């Protein structure tokens, strides 16, 4: 077994709002090893982006606060580091790319300058060497004529090119961990496929661990080794991608997978729906947050948070009906 690059244990994040305390992240645990791709999947508001922000120490505070758990990155607990120490890690050992590459690049600097700047923040090199490194990175992410593109401003590039620049910037300091938050949501399908291919190639070449945050189960299938499914601030199922996709345990995961309109499904049948909507984090009961929408719910579901039940090696789901073996496998 390789030592995981990132190991999150029982992480809890609270938001204090006008309407009360929201447990934005509740008992979140997972780990990623070098060269591994973990997908965190869920609907909007489930806490997947908040997980990414807490790794980077970027939770808006107030109202947010880490109230428990640990984030072990290469053996160090990030929740105990000072902001100045975190800043050295951000963009260095841990890098992040975002959904909208237009707003995450500075419009008044050229792409080359921005990558070079990122390099010089974390490595002691001359400006000339940093710029050379920038061009090299642009080439590595498959940008044609990198010398020319290094001199281009972000608005002069297409969306796909800009996302490549973001990736180049993120990888310029050879991070051990790359967090990609919905990196292809703003892009066209054919361009999304290119970015996926690029991320896949890079992780194989450099051994960077990747956390892919997405709402798209298709993206999970295409990319992930491991999956964590989130609902209302908790991980309700996790395991190897194949196991979760082919043999989902939690009724929510099953519902989510079934409700995707698929090219290869019978188009005449109605899509299975999950009734209702995601609950507000401020009015969750003591029990399973999914219970009000769950077809399999029994009174006991509302009594206490369900524990994770092992379904197979490394595959588990948090559902008491699973314990009782009433969810057929």
């Amino acid at each position, binding site marked *: 077994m390789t030592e995981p690059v990132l190991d999150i244990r029982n992480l809890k994040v609270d938001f204090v709002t006008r309407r009360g305390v929201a447990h934005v992240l509740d008992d979140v645990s997972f780990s990623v090893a070098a060269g591994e791709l973990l997908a965190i999947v869920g609907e909007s508001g489930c806490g997947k982006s908040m997980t990414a922000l807490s790794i980077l120490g970027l939770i808006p505070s107030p109202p947010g606060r880490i109230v428990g758990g640990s984030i072990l990155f290469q053996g160090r607990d990030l929740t105990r580091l000072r902001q100045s120490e975190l800043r050295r890690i951000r963009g260095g050992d841990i890098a992040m790319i975002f959904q909208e590459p237009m707003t995450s690049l500075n419009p008044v600097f050229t792409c080359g300058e921005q990558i070079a700047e990122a390099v010089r923040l974390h490595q002691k090199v001359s400006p000339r060497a940093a710029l050379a490194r920038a061009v090299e990175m642009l080439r590595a992410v498959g940008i044609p004529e990198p010398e020319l593109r290094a001199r281009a401003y972000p608005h002069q590039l297409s969306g796909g090119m800009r996302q490549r620049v973001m990736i180049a910037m993120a990888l310029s300091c050879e991070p051990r961990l790359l967090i990609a938050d919905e990196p292809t949501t703003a892009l066209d399908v054919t361009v999304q496929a290119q970015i996926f291919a690029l991320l896949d190639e890079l992780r194989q070449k450099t051994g960077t661990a990747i956390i892919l945050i997405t709402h798209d189960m298709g993206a999970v299938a295409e990319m992930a080794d491991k999956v964590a499914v989130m609902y209302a601030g908790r991980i309700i199922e996790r395991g190897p991608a194949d196991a979760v996709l082919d043999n989902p345990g939690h009724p929510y995961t099953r519902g989510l997978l079934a409700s995707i309109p698929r090219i290869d499904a019978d188009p005449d049948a109605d899509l299975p729906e999950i009734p*209702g909507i995601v609950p507000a984090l401020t009015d969750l009961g003591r029990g399973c947050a999914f219970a009000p*929408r769950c077809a399999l719910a029994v009174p006991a579901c509302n009594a206490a948070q369900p524990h994770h039940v092992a379904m197979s090696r490394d595959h588990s789901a948090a559902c008491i009906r699973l314990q009782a073996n009433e969810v057929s496998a």
Partner: protein
Amino acid sequence: MTAPARTTVPAARGPMAEAWDIFRRSPAAMLGLLLLGLVILMTVAGPFLYQVDPFEIVWAPLTPPGEEATIPLGTDNLGRDILAGLIEGGRATLAVGFSAALITMLIGVVIGAYAGFYGGFVDDMLMRVTEFFQVLPPLLFAMVVVTLFQPTLINVALAIGIVSWPQTARLTRSEFRRIRTLEYVSAMRAVGAGDGNIIWRVILPNALPPLIVSATLTIGMAILFEAGLSFLGLSDPNVMSWGLMIGTGREYLLDAWWVVTLPGTMIFLTVLGISLVGDGLNDAFNPWMRER
């Protein structure tokens, strides 16, 4: 369906109700509202409670406040009652402030709305006109207007309105340009709504929040402007206003501080109140604008 049926309908909450909720949570904004309310109350109810003609000579000139029980705030250089002046003058000052803001909004919103909605040639033309007014030095232009015509309150308000509408026009234009591309505007077109309907009944109500903030601040600015013109002797000498009081009292500042300081304080408190309300409105409107 397994979802439990909710039996109660939540209360309808319009964007304005939400904004008021945020507004009233801000102590600064509520303080501003209180200040403004007190000033308005004073000018409206004052004449009934304190029936003294502000132009009448009632006592020895330059009597300090508190020296004579019947004249609590003293007299000016002509022996006129300062409290009466503050009460009566507040009316004129506020009237000029509000009507100047109204004129500013009327001109600015109409021009900005058409420029922003139609774009192209109409926009180019209207914006050139706007720029022409924007490069005029405001105080100088207002002075010219007031000297050329009679320095009546209406003319002062008009002069202030004419120099300050371009800002409003630009703000309105940018809001209209943003909102006209939103889908609910297309949805109205798809059901055959005409341009007039879309401009005034669909886009304008949605463009209002920043315009209300700007109108509020315009009132404060107009009050300062009026004071400035009065100070220079360019206001209606037959109507008592705070500016006029400062203007006539300025020569006695060193001997009788109250003649200038009291109306000055009133202006300060009023404009402060308006600014606080404006800031509060700005914050109140922002959150729901951010959620699109």
